[in-house]
């Protein structure tokens, strides 16, 4: 079926355009070519989606699944022993006093004293230490943290009971998909493992096969621990939160301010072109280079500041500059060019007619920028900033260089404390050979991804809300 115009008298350009037959031939080729490219683009999209799906699959697959677990003390027996119904009652539901009693009954007095010196159980009563010794060690030159810190809370104590009383030991674990498809095979593998003498510490009848979600609420609020079964990412989450706070406090005012200057005030000049080019280049500098910068400047040169020594007269809260503030400022520097560029783009998108309108009313530049330009540019600035900060949360390389502690069990207390962060924790756990560490690394990855997706969602919501309001 072809569509042709009626014959016309031949004109001047007849030889330059194809004849009707030639045109029909070309049309077929053009249409085939068009559909080929459409298919190629679709294929590209499919590959991209598959890559993302694989990523999610890998992480989720390791975060859930069957485990073969040996508990030193069965939690159900413990609960039943205290007169509760094990069907509905778990260790976490026990009262504070019950848990302290459990600890007293199950840990050695040496370990108990160490725990108490770390953080005491009751504000007005000592459990493992006696009053005399306590007063003595607290009066010494280097008193333990328990002398000053408040008592433990319920979650902290529950984690201790898990670690010290239940003492779970995962001897084998299975990934999510095989756990769903062939659970019986896992049991067989465990039995074969015993038959082959691989699990010499335990006997087969001690083993319980159960479902375990490595990513669970307790995991989020439990501090780091050297035993993967009881380890959590509370320390890492708090560390990451502190880093984000400092990154934002540094990068947003400085970045937005610089962008406002460049867009609204700077005149076209060689110097400004040079600065602009360099900002664009800085955005592409690998993060490890920023790590080296942070190590050289913030950790070493500015050590009196970053260790907090100049604020505390005498003993600094941390003995060197490898602190949250040093890492946060490093991440802030890393984020800065991206914040500047995205804020610049947002400001440039505001039409000049608004600037002229403001200035023609006798407003100063700053009045115009503050009241008319920034409100319009704000959603763009916020979106860019949030995406840049989301990027910073996932950064690992600069943190390793600046010296994030890989093993730290106490919550960060402020910008001058030692810290760890989510990506560091994941990196660390992945490097251990035991499967259980890989499981908790995957669970921590889920937490990190959820955090990032939340931030991105906030960016989208802010953008939508503000752009609707500006209409």
């Amino acid at each position, binding site marked *: 079926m072809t569509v042709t115009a009626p014959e016309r008298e031949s004109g001047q350009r007849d030889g330059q355009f194809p004849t009707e037959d030639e045109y029909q031939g070309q049309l077929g080729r053009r249409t085939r070519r068009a559909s080929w490219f459409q298919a190629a683009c679709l294929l590209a999209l499919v590959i991209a989606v598959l890559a993302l799906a694989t990523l999610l699959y890998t992480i989720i697959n390791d975060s859930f699944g069957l485990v073969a677990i040996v508990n030193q003390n069965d939690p159900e027996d413990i609960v039943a022993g205290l007169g509760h119904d094990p069907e509905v009652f778990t260790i976490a539901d026990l009262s504070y006093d019950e848990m302290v009693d459990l600890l007293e009954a199950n840990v050695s007095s040496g370990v108990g004293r160490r725990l108490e010196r770390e953080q005491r159980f009751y504000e007005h009563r000592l459990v493992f230490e006696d009053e005399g010794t306590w007063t003595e060690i607290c009066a010494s030159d280097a008193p333990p943290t328990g002398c000053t810190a408040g008592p433990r809370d319920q979650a902290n104590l529950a984690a201790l009971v898990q670690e010290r009383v239940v003492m779970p030991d995962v001897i084998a674990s299975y990934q999510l998909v095989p756990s769903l498809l062939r659970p019986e095979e896992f049991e067989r593998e465990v039995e074969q493992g015993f038959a082959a003498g691989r699990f010499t510490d335990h006997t087969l009848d001690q083993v319980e096969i159960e479902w375990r979600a490595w990513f669970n609420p307790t995991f989020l609020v439990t501090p780091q621990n050297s035993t993967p079964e009881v380890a959590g990412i509370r320390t890492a989450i708090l560390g990451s939160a502190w880093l984000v706070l400092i990154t934002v406090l540094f990068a947003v005012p400085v970045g937005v301010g610089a962008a406002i200057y460049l867009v609204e005030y700077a005149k076209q000049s060689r110097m400004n072109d040079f600065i602009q080019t360099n900002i664009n280049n800085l955005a592409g500098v690998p993060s490890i280079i920023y790590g080296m910068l942070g190590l050289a400047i913030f950790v070493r040169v500015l050590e009196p500041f970053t260790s907090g020594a100049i604020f505390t007269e005498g003993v600094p809260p941390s003995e060197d500059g490898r602190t949250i503030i040093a890492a946060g400022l490093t991440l802030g520097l890393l984020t800065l060019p991206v914040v500047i560029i995205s804020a610049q783009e947002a400001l440039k998108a505001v039409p000049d007619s608004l600037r*002229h309108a403001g*200035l*023609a*009313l006798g407003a100063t530049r700053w009045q115009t920028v503050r009241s008319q330009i920034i409100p319009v540019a704000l959603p763009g600035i916020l979106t860019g900033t949030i995406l840049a900060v989301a990027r910073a949360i996932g950064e690992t390389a600069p943190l390793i260089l600046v010296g994030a502690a890989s093993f730290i069990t106490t919550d960060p207390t402020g910008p001058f404390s030692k810290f760890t962060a989510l990506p560091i924790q994941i990196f660390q756990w992945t490097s251990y050979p035991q499967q259980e560490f890989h499981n908790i690394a995957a669970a921590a990855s889920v937490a990190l991804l959820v955090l990032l997706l939340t931030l991105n969602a906030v960016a989208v919501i802010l953008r939508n809300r503000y752009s609707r309001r500006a209409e």
Partner: protein
Amino acid sequence: MTNETSTETRVDRVIEERKTTDPQTQVESDSATGSVPGVIETKDMSVYYGDFRAVADVSLDFGRNEISALIGPSGCGKSTVLRSLNRMNDLVATARTEGQVHYHGQNIYAEGVDPVEVRRTIGMVFQKPNPFPKSIYDNIAWGAKINGFRGNKSEMEDLVHEALVGAALWDEVKDKLGDSGYSLSGGQQQRLCIARAIAVKPDVILMDEPCSSLDPIATLRIEELMLELKENYSIIIVTHNMQQAARVSDKTAFFNVKLDDSGMRTGRLVEYSPTEQLFTSPREKDTEDYITGRFG
């Protein structure tokens, strides 16, 4: 004008003097000396964009409480001249103005004159309506606020009311002052911009083709409004529409593009006369060709 002393409040002082002096006697004394009582006067003004001279040697004298129109073909520099009158051309990085622009005898390009002060006194309405993305109320109140308006809430409401009445927009928007300025039609938006301009109590209003993006009915309303505003303000308007110039203006300046000695195209003032005279018996051949539609 290099021997100027205090520059800080020069423009303010002129306004003060204007208020305290009876306008009638001033006009009489001016006419007694044979000069026109001008509000803005340019002397041999040339404007450059980089090396390009956009308009050369413009000497004009705009009368008080008059509407003066600038007409001419595209590229003749009439908008450039208009933007030079309140230093909006300063915003173009490469722009440079030579010669002098006097506002009530004070050179607004003299050293130390703050363009902010100039623009507050010599307001501007643009080609495309450009309300702020805020409520109708805030569009008008903002200019007063940033210029240090000290009145309380009800006084501000009075000011907004007065400006909207002055711009013949009050009846259409009185029930929706909280709505966005963008919710209005193009013609209403332009009147909102005029209301915004008069709310800061300027002396002169510059209008850069204010009706070019409006339909004929909206255009008519703006023209009527201009004739009303003339009572209190001096208006200088750039227009492409010769009928508009003929309808509203008291005096008309015709600009044309001329090749200068080096072959560069430069805008020049051809003729500046009372409007009626310019359109009925132009002195210059170029003017006659333009207004009769032979080019442009």
